[in-house]
């Protein structure tokens, strides 16, 4: 019997190639979308699953609470926290600290082989880690052993990838490498282990781990031995005894803070709350900011999942609509079969068999499509997802199950509808679709277009916001700015000389030096307060240390007072330039009013005093997701992390060449590296860019599938009305009136969906835009544009069919009846 169903299904499919194509294409694409998103979700939820102790590992999260400002949760703690926690609570088996080399984006790693040239690389994702790190986390070592790998000072554990880069095919163990870090200084390290990449992703995507002891941070940590309040730089991980209730332990932590940190916290004026974040939850907890790697937003995952499901639903609707629209063609078969003794249930099974056959064929295409699209998807989503038949066999069965369910869902409505025909009626003659079925079909078309219109609005809003962020006035000149990192002592020392030489170049406008530049992480912040206030009333203020030409180079404009400048040799590092936001938050009223006023900062028991010499216009040192907050510049003469070179418009390649030549002259040991300020700034929009790309791809897919469905229905409707059109033409109707006659019904549906979709889209996208402090609000033009696009696409789809029908020779169509 089943063989029989499939046979009929197959023959029907081959007979109606056009409709089969629409259905199979739609279902293939819909299923492929779902499979891709399922793979993505699977990947995102598999983070940190390779660690044997995963269920018992927790990260310590610190919430900073200051009256008057927003609660801020960070995954960081001060240095002594880990050891003290272990001492205090027996349920904590082990603790480990992890510190990213936070002041640099790249670290210089060098190897000097006995023979041959020195190898020098700029490496990302370097960390300092306690020896206990490898007791808590599971890493597969290909060389050395995780036991006590980082016990000795100046030891390093490197990734297989880095080992290959440094040593080629030679063993890495016990080789000595030279690591030059902005954060940790310049030392030799002995390789004690090589680990291979985990089978599943981890939120710690380390390239190499340095021992905590042996570098500049060792001294810093020793000095912080009793400070439980400030310098929250360390990721602290706890391994709990199996069976420990993390919530109970968390409940004890306020007492811990009270015991160790209350005095210091009082001094600087904020409160702290500690909480424990389970390892497996880290990647999907976007509420905790700036983790080791950026977390994935659960909302984004939900959004992606819904879009994929909706795409599949659109394809299912095509199947339902085309099946019921064509039902008159199948009706006599239903009648005959019933006369031959078929029961309704048998017919339902037959029609379901056909839809399942169709989805199974679509499934094969979908798998092929997935394999083809996976590289593109990885590129767009920034992940490394793979699919292999042998490894993911279970998943394949799940996908197959998904396809079967899709087939049943898509086929059930047509199956029940078709099998309910009364044989006497259908065999007697023509079957006209009942009004109810036509209404359902129209409703489904409207539903499809609601989804499409919402997606179009989303794409347009996201694209506008992205464009706004890329082109917004950031308050400084972001174009033509070359950033040259000064990573080593030698490079830092060469800054002044390099600057002098390059400034003479006619294609360079200006050069400045600084600790940080807009768009990158700025870890220096202090609570700053004015006369008559205490530290508790202080405002968190980001700090930057710049030379006397940095503000001019970035064209950050003064509104009161003056900028640092070579003309004022008397400027010392007690002078400060603040932004307008700082003026407002400290409560000076006007910028002019703030000039020459004093500001204070209390650190441990020392109070520093600064004099305001200038106020600059607010500028975006962080991306437009975040509001501008108080910011202060201090004058430094040396020790800059970055040289910022403002090139005049013209030949950028030549300027870069000039800089490189001069660089090599002054600092031959460091590799020359540079980036562009605008590109660095836009890196902050990576997640948004991804979302924009994914949503626009899905929008195109959804529109294509919807339009194919519409196309099919229009074709069918035109075919069904061939006789009517013939008669009308004979009676003198023009092509124009016939085209509008055929199009108007469908256009009404599209207009209806625009009307329904607009408020939904407005609500959703408005919510999305709330995530940006600076945004381009949604206005009516978006809906006008979207409506226009939807109607245009719909018209093109329908008109081709309407035109074909209208242009047909009426003699022919009337004779064939």
């Amino acid at each position, binding site marked *: 019997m089943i063989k029989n169903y499939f*046979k009929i299904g197959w*023959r029907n499919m081959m007979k109606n190639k056009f409709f089969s194509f629409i259905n199979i294409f739609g279902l293939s694409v819909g299923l492929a979308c779902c499979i891709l998103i399922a793979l993505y979700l699977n990947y995102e939820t598999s983070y940190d699953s390779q660690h044997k102790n995963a269920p018992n590992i927790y990260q310590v999260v610190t919430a900073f609470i200051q009256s008057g400002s927003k609660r801020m949760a960070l995954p960081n703690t001060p240095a002594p926290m880990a050891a003290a926690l272990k001492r205090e609570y027996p349920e904590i088996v082990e603790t480990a600290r992890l510190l990213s080399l936070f002041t640099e984006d790249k670290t210089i790693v060098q190897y000097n082989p006995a023979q041959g040239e020195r190898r020098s690389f700029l490496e990302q994702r370097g960390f300092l880690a306690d020896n206990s790190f490898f007791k808590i986390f599971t890493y597969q070592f290909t060389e050395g052993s995780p036991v006590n790998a980082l016990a000795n000072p100046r030891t390093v554990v490197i990734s297989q990838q880095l080992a290959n880069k440094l040593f080629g095919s030679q063993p890495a163990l016990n080789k000595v490498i030279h690591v030059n870090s902005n954060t940790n200084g310049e030392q030799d390290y002995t390789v004690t282990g090589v680990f291979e990449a985990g089978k599943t992703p981890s939120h710690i995507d380390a390239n190499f781990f340095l021992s905590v002891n042996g570098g500049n941070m060792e001294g810093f940590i020793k000095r912080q031995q009793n400070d439980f309040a400030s310098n929250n730089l360390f990721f602290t991980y706890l391994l709990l005894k199996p069976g420990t209730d993390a919530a109970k332990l968390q409940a004890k932590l306020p007492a811990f803070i009270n015991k160790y940190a209350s005095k210091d916290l009082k001094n600087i004026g904020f409160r702290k709350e500690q909480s424990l974040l389970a390892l497996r939850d880290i990647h999907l907890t976007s509420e905790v900011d700036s983790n080791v790697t950026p977390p994935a937003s659960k909302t984004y995952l939900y959004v992606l999942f819904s879009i994929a499901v909706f795409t599949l639903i659109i394809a299912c609707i095509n199947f339902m609509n085309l099946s019921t629209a064509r039902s008159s063609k199948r009706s006599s078969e239903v009648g005959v*079969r019933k006369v*031959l003794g078929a029961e309704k249930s048998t017919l339902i099974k037959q029609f379901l068999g056909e839809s399942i056959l169709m989805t199974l064929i679509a499934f094969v295409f979908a798998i092929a499509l997935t394999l083809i699209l996976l590289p593109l998807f990885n590129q767009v989503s920034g992940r490394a997802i793979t699919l292999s038949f042998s490894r993911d066999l279970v998943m394949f069965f799940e996908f197959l199950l998904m396809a079967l369910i899709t087939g049943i869902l898509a086929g059930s409505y047509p199956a029940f509808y078709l099998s309910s025909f009364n044989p*006497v009626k259908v065999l*007697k003659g023509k079957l006209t679709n009942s009004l109810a079925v036509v209404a359902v079909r129209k409703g489904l078309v409207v539903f499809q277009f609601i989804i499409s219109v919402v997606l179009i609005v989303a794409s347009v809003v996201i694209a506008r916001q992205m464009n706004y962020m890329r082109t917004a006035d950031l308050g400084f000149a972001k174009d033509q700015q070359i950033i040259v990192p000064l990573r080593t002592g030698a490079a830092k020392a060469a800054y002044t000389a390099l600057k002098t030489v390059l400034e003479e170049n006619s294609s360079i406008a200006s050069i400045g030096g600084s600790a940080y530049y807009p768009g990158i992480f700025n870890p220096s912040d202090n609570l700053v307060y004015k006369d008559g206030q205490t530290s508790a009333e202080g405002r968190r203020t980001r700090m930057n240390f710049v030379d006397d030409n940095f503000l001019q180079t970035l064209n950050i404009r003064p509104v009161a007072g003056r900028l640092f400048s070579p003309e004022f040799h008397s400027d010392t590092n007690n002078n400060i330039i603040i932004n307008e936001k700082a003026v407002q938050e400290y409560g000076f009223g006007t910028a002019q009013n703030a000039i020459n006023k004093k500001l204070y900062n209390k650190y441990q028991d020392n109070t520093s005093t600064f004099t305001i010499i200038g106020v600059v216009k607010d500028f975006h040192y962080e991306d437009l997701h975040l509001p501008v907050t108080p910011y202060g510049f201090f004058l430094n003469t040396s020790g800059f992390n970055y040289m910022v070179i403002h090139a005049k418009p013209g030949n950028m390649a030549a300027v870069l060449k000039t800089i490189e030549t001069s660089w090599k002259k002054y600092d031959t040991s460091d590799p020359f590296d540079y980036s562009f300020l605008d590109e660095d700034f836009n890196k902050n929009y990576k997640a948004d860019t991804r979302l924009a790309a994914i949503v626009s791809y899905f929008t195109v897919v959804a529109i294509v599938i919807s339009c194919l469905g519409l196309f099919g229905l229009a074709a069918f409707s035109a075919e069904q009305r061939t006789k009517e059109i013939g008669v009308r033409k004979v009676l003198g109707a023009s092509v124009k009136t016939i085209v509008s006659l055929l199009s108007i019904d469908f256009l009404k549906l599209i207009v209806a969906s625009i009307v329904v979709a607009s408020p939904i889209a407005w609500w959703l996208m408005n919510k999305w835009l709330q995530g940006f402090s600076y945004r381009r609000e949604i206005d009516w033009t978006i809906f006008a544009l979207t409506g226009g696009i939807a109607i245009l696409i719909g018209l093109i789809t329908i008109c081709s069919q309407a035109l074909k029908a209208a242009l047909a020779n009426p003699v022919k169509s009337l004779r064939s009846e």
Partner: protein
Amino acid sequence: MLSLQHISKYYQVGGNKNFVVNDISLDVDEGEFVSIMGPSGSGKSTLLNIIGMLDEPNDGYHYFVNQPVHQLKEKQRAALYKQYIGFVFQAYHLIDELTVYENIETPLIYQDVKGSERKAMVADMLDRFQIVGKKDLFPAQLSGGQQQLVGIARALIAKPKLLLADEPTGNLNSKQGEEIMELFRKLNKEDGVTIIQVTHSEKNAEYGSRIINLLDGRVESSRKF
């Protein structure tokens, strides 16, 4: 074999009942060959459909092989129908997507006959109708007469006791029609199949053993030969 008593079928039009079949009583014995005649709209086909259980009357009693059809549930009626009744149509109503062989086989599938048995029965039927050579053709590849032959073969495959035919020769030329009628007579005489046919043609009606004339849903006359 079957007995209709005071059968009526009507449609409610406004407040009036529009009778298609109006209080018809009719008995048919096993082995009869009945022809139903009458002008268009006289209720011939409706009556045939009621006899064939494809349509339900609004009033009256309907007995078939001593079972009260009007009291049976859908399932039981279907079972009764499957076992005893075969249908032949004016428009043949073969399934376009199935071959001659598969069309004939279909009723057996719905009666859950085993595959090997089906094969033997269909082969037998093809042989008997001398259409073995056409078994793999699709209906569109056959002439009208050949299609109707397949239609009859399909109606007979499950060995029904009663064959209902709704203008079986209506779409055929006179020669083809004659052949079909000869076949009906043979089935009736040699195999003892009871046949009820609806026809417009006086000549075809005379193949039967009784002619019933309908007018406006009522039996106008009935004559036996």
